[in-house]
């Protein structure tokens, strides 16, 4: 596709449930990023992939959060035992390159709004 796509656009779940959020990056982009944006705040970094591997997962808040990118394209963010505090917009971004090229641009998807009741 022309841009980064994310599904679903909205997800409502109950506390304690498991959710998966999907990101489809721009074709050919090797770098993929997940961010979380809580209400009234700027996005915060969660995890970054280069190809299939997670190069930096320092932003994941705890071990309930996990992300994969098995074929180096689509990525899934997985949240176990959801809590009300996980409610936020989860943003995905991709870029053409990563290491050493700090002029590259991250292109963002529209986000998935997660609501935990």
């Amino acid at each position, binding site marked *: 596709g022309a*841009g980064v796509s994310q599904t679903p656009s909205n997800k409502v779940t109950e506390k304690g449930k498991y959710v998966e959020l999907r990101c489809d990056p721009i074709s050919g982009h090797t770098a993929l990023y997940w961010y979380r944006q809580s209400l*009234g705040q700027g996005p915060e970094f969660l995890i970054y992939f280069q190809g299939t591997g997670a190069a*930096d997962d320092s932003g994941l808040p705890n071990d309930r959060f996990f992300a994969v990118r098995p074929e180096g394209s689509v990525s899934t963010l997985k949240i176990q035992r959801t809590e009300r505090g996980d409610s936020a917009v989860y943003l995905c971004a991709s870029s053409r390159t*990563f*290491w050493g090229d*700090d*002029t590259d641009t991250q292109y*963002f998807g529209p*986000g998935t709004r997660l609501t935990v009741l």
Partner: protein
Amino acid sequence: AQSVTQLDSHVSVSEGTPVLLRCNYSSSYSPSLFWYVQHPNKGLQLLLKYTSAATLVKGINGFEAEFKKSETSFHLTKPSAHMSDAAEYFCVRLSGGYNKLIFGAGTRLAVHP
């Protein structure tokens, strides 16, 4: 710690008047800096980026920003506001490591007729 500070959470201007959104960064070197815009229910869009090639950076939709190392600032300006400029604006820096972005808290721009 690396950070960016947006000095105003809300800015309100009249259509046709200048826009100034202020941003300061913390660093002992010149980082890569960006401004992104977020319209309601839409994704983040890059307005412009500074990567040390020139201190005055021109972006899309008539926006520009000036990098001032002596003031550690990267303020966003536009000579004449349009109604369509109403949105949330984020000042962003690139981290020193793997290209993760560090966002400011955002400035909500309102444009009145």
